[in-house]
């Protein structure tokens, strides 16, 4: 696929231009229903086209669910929504075998697939489910398959889980385990809209006109865009820089600043470096370049690393946030050629 997309420089330029135009079209279509939040829309699309999953965090009422629903409509992908509750079981997510009556009056076990079997899965308020149910997503997110009993179902590409959680209301919730957090490519923070955006939000939600979102892409095109992303080369020094950024979050490493050594219990895994490069590739294409630069990697650092850094008790008592840790790492690990 990669060879077909970019055998020559002309084909590479053509593929990059197509990628950029499709990306812009999807963003524009989503923007019809989702007012503002350009960075969040761009981050969600980047994660989708990089082949990862995304975790959206924000207080209620900011349009997290609306964003994912609109994206499903714009991409014409099979979309499912799971409202996580404390009494939800893994079978409710993955599917289960149920006893059905046959035509002859007999009974047999039939597998009924759960909402996980889709292209775009919205896991709403994922932290309200118990860890047992949350664990049901691990295999789907990493292996793109689910196993129920002796049955294994391969999920259809493109497959993307978009989960939301509320950082404030923590009563009756269960924090996501580290293994599951690490499987999210990005963790995006959804903030309040700007004052200028409130008017259009009110018009869209309180008037009689509904935003009509049309499909501007499909699953095949998304798969092709994913292939283009994978074809973008990464120079050696950019790769080295991404590795050093990830190692900078690990306490005790050679690139960790003092803030990390003092306040971080757990740093990023190698998945963090993978996510940095994948996000950097999408960003390089959108910037009209054909190779990943260090600034692309650094631009993705917060979204990639903030949920992979676990602040220890000392850091929590000092009010150290993961974003502050990432800032310290970025300041400590300079880009190549930054120090003249």
């Amino acid at each position, binding site marked *: 696929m990669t060879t077909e997309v970019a055998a020559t420089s002309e084909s590479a330029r053509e593929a990059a231009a197509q990628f950029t135009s499709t990306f812009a079209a999807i963003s524009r279509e989503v923007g019809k229903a989702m007012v503002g939040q350009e960075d969040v829309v761009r981050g969600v699309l980047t994660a989708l086209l990089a082949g990862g999953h995304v975790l959206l965090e924000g207080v209620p009422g900011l349009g997290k669910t609306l964003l994912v629903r609109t994206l499903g409509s714009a991409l014409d992908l099979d979309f499912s929504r799971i409202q996580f509750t404390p009494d939800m079981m893994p079978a409710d997510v993955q599917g289960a075998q149920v006893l059905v009556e046959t035509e002859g009056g007999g009974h047999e076990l039939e597998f009924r697939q759960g909402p996980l079997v889709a292209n775009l899965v919205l896991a709403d308020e994922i932290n309200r489910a118990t860890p047992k149910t949350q664990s049901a997503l691990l295999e789907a997110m990493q292996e793109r398959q689910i196993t129920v009993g002796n049955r294994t179902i391969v999920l259809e590409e493109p497959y993307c889980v978009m989960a939301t959680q509320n950082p404030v209301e923590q009563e009756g919730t269960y924090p996501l385990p580290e293994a599951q957090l690490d499987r999210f490519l990005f963790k995006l923070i959804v903030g309040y809209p700007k004052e200028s955006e409130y008017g259009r939000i009110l018009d869209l939600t309180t008037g009689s006109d509904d935003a009509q979102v049309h499909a501007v892409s499909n699953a095949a095109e998304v798969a092709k865009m994913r292939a283009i992303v994978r074809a973008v080369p990464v*120079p050696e020094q950019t790769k080295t820089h991404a590795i050093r950024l990830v190692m900078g979050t690990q306490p005790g490493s050679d690139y960790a600043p003092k803030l990390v050594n003092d306040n971080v219990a757990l740093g990023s895994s190698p998945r963090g470096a993978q996510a940095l490069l994948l996000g950097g590739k999408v960003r390089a294409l959108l*910037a009209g370049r054909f*190779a990943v630069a260090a600034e692309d990697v650094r631009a993705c650092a917060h979204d990639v690393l903030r949920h992979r850094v676990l*602040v220890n008790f000392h850091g929590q008592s000092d009010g150290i946030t993961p974003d502050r840790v990432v800032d310290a790492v970025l300041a400590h690990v300079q880009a*190549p050629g930054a120090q*003249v």
Partner: protein
Amino acid sequence: MSTNDPNTGSVADAQRATNEGLREDLHDLAERTALDLAHRRAVRTASLVTSRSLWLVLLVPALAVVVALVLNLLRRPEHFWRTETLGEYVGTALLLSIGALVPLAALVAHRTWRAYETRATRARALAVLDRHLGLADRLTTADEFLGFSGRNGFEMAAVEDARDVVSKARGTVLPQVAFGWRPRRPEWAVLALALALTLLAARIDPGHRLHHPDGQIEEETASLGEVTVLDTGVERTASESDAESDVPETPPREPRERRTQTAVRADAKATEVPDQVKESKGTTREGESSDAQSSSGAGSAKGTPSNQEQQSAGEAKAQQTPKKPKPTEETREDEQQEKKRAEEDSGSTAGRGSAKGSNKNAVATPWSSKDQVDTPDDQQIEDDDEFEDDAEEQKARGGMQPNMRDRRPPVSRDLSIGFGNRPNPDANGRGGPSEQKKSRGTASLVLGVPVPDRVKGQPNRGKTKITQERVEPRAEVADPVAAGAREASQAPLGNVPSPQSSPWMRDAVRRYFVALRASEAEVPAPAPSSDD
């Protein structure tokens, strides 16, 4: 596409040639940028090393001072410089100043040269140029991809991207940095200290020649005290400067034997003009301290009125108590001078012939005895003596018995009359006429048990009284905060700590409420009011 196509082959050749040209361009850019970086690094290193190693300017002057002092002690003037004339002094100071800069200059030059010699790698030089021009690593990426044998489409596109920006990079020169060291306050202090040491080292002249009046030349070494006085000039008084300026030429120094004889005569004259003795302090010559001169004056006061010794004592006292306020000292000295004159007129001959030169009369008049104890120091000394007597007395007893010195006789309970001055022969010490009791109290009843009933300086600590009162809470006035428009949150909200997710918070809240309930349980319930 077939490689046998002549058009394809020519395009490939042209592309290969273009890539070679790009590779050479990148090489030139890297070389030039590496040179610029080396120059910048050298300048920064020079500034940094100058700032950090400035103390090296102290090395040579300090060494020169030490050498001068050692040679001074060894009396080896032939191995030292001469500063008899102003020209020699200035020349020596200049030479030492230049020498002081040599170690620092050598170190800075060495480090700077090493920094200049260390060249940046090609990749780093191109990365610096990328960062400086905002090229998003295009030059570095192209330089790396040019080394690949089989490039894919994206890599070739990246190389072509770099070809467009090379011309822009070719005309770019990195901004040069200037030598950035500016002396700060501590560094100015180091330079001033180096200058002072240089001048001091140049001023020490063990080879200074002394000319006798009869033409004899004697070599003398300068004492450190004289050098300090000459350099700083702090201890010079105006009268000394005037006295020296009045002298047309340097008075010839005398040999020590002759100076001793003349000193005796001069001290004898000092009895007539006592102020000269005071003025002569600080102008003592080499090898003779001011104390020695003062003592020689006291020794020569034998057989003279004790007025001279009085002056010496007054000076000694002034030296011992330099912190006293000056006006009080002067008025006191004036009063003492008047008293001394009065004493000399009346009975100062009583002190004549005293070896110690005391001005105290054998029969002190009331005002003179007041004068003797008037000073607070004497009073302090007496108080201390009394205290020490008490302490020593108790110490001598080993703390075994109480101090009975200030005990008073018991109250007389002699109810009888008619004995007159005679004691009652039937007295038994109990409620009747008796002798003065020897002791009283528990200590006298228990034999051998040491019970000191008075320990000086160790009073009882007393009791600590704690008063608690119930205070009703009072309301305070607070300004209401006006609501305002709020911008959209730009920064991420981050983790909001949750009591559920933080066990330590739950523990802290639990401990707080347990402690609160425990304290409430201890407080007695208020009595029910009559209304209830």
